[in-house]
């Protein structure tokens, strides 16, 4: 069973299926994006027991019993507002992953310094280069 955003789903896929594949292809939760599929870019970031995790290189069966949170579970999080307000996205393809990482950061450090933001967000690549605005969104989010 997969616990995703508080719902239990039966995991039908075979061993070797990644969490990203299970989320997108089986559960049709396509807010989680896959951009590199080898753990290099962060687009697929989800929370596993609250910890930012690369779903594209996590085998789905290894997180049975854990709590998985995807962007679909964070749609009402104030970080979404902060991103839109700061224009912290352009094409938007990396954005769900950025927001998931940002949420985990502020859940543990509500007012992170610029240095903490840069350290915590360095695994989420944005090819459009929305980084200054992402930094602003996290600096100015209101929980």
């Amino acid at each position, binding site marked *: 069973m997969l616990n995703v955003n508080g719902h239990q789903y039966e995991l039908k896929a075979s061993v070797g299926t990644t969490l990203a594949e299970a989320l997108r292809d089986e559960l049709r939760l396509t807010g989680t994006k896959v951009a590199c599929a080898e753990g290099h870019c962060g687009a697929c970031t989800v929370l596993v027991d609250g910890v930012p*995790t690369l779903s594209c*290189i996590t*085998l789905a069966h290894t997180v049975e019993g854990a709590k998985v949170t995807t962007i679909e579970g964070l749609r009402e999080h104030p970080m979404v507002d902060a991103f839109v307000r700061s224009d912290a996205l352009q094409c938007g393809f990396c954005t769900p992953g950025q927001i998931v990482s940002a949420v985990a950061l502020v859940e543990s450090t509500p007012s992170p310094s610029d240095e903490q933001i840069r*350290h915590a967000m360095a*695994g989420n690549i944005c090819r459009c280069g929305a980084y200054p605005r992402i930094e602003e969104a996290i600096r100015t989010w209101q929980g």
Partner: protein
Amino acid sequence: MELKRPSSLAEVGDGLALAGGTEVVPLLRSGILSADTLVDVRGVVPAGIDGTTIGAAATLAELEVDPQIPGALREACRLAASPQLRNMGTLAGNLLQSTRCWYWRLKWPCRLHGGDECFAIEGEHREHAIFANDFCASAHPSDVAAALLALDATVTTTSRTFGIGELYRLSTDDDRNTTTLEDGELILSVDVPPCDASVYLKAMDRKRWSFPIVGVAAVRRGSETRVALAGVAPVPWLYDGSEPTPLPGNAYKVEILDALVRRARAAL
């Protein structure tokens, strides 16, 4: 493929060990590794820190903020990989990671893959080894291993305890392995003896999320200083002042190495 999730060491049995999965899963998917059985060992390998002993399943993210461990190790963890990879990746997994050599990662039939040529030596080797690079010029990418080697750490596995330097070996014509682990042997913990001062300096291509061009760990105990290097040899390299043997395209690494060693020593 099947996945076993044992809850005791006795249940581990045969199969490919998997913990954070940051190295094993991509290598499985790109066909460099294959397995019928995967064994998720997170339930059986210790995590956490107990005095000077670090559980092999501790994640890099845990270590990078832990005040109990020496600065060089903390810094090596902090500057390794990306935040998500540090969240997922374990200490033992980091020590056992493979080279970033592009020829190896792209499955060229190189010496490390059992072939008879190192393609990097005649090819593109700017990020490759400047020591011990005549058989295979791959560079070992572990920042953490360099720090532990400088710290003179001890590794305990399911069958033995030994100095971390003995975990690694240079591949040779008749044995292409780069570690000395036997089949089924799991790293359980790493013991890091205390030191008076330690530092890790890293040169990389981006400010974060890059493997080391040159990583320098230096540790002082009394008047004794021990320096170990990442990214400059096929294995984590204990620096004894011997002359590097760079390839035509990576001599720049020597200059960086000299500067960082000088600075690391000065910082102690």
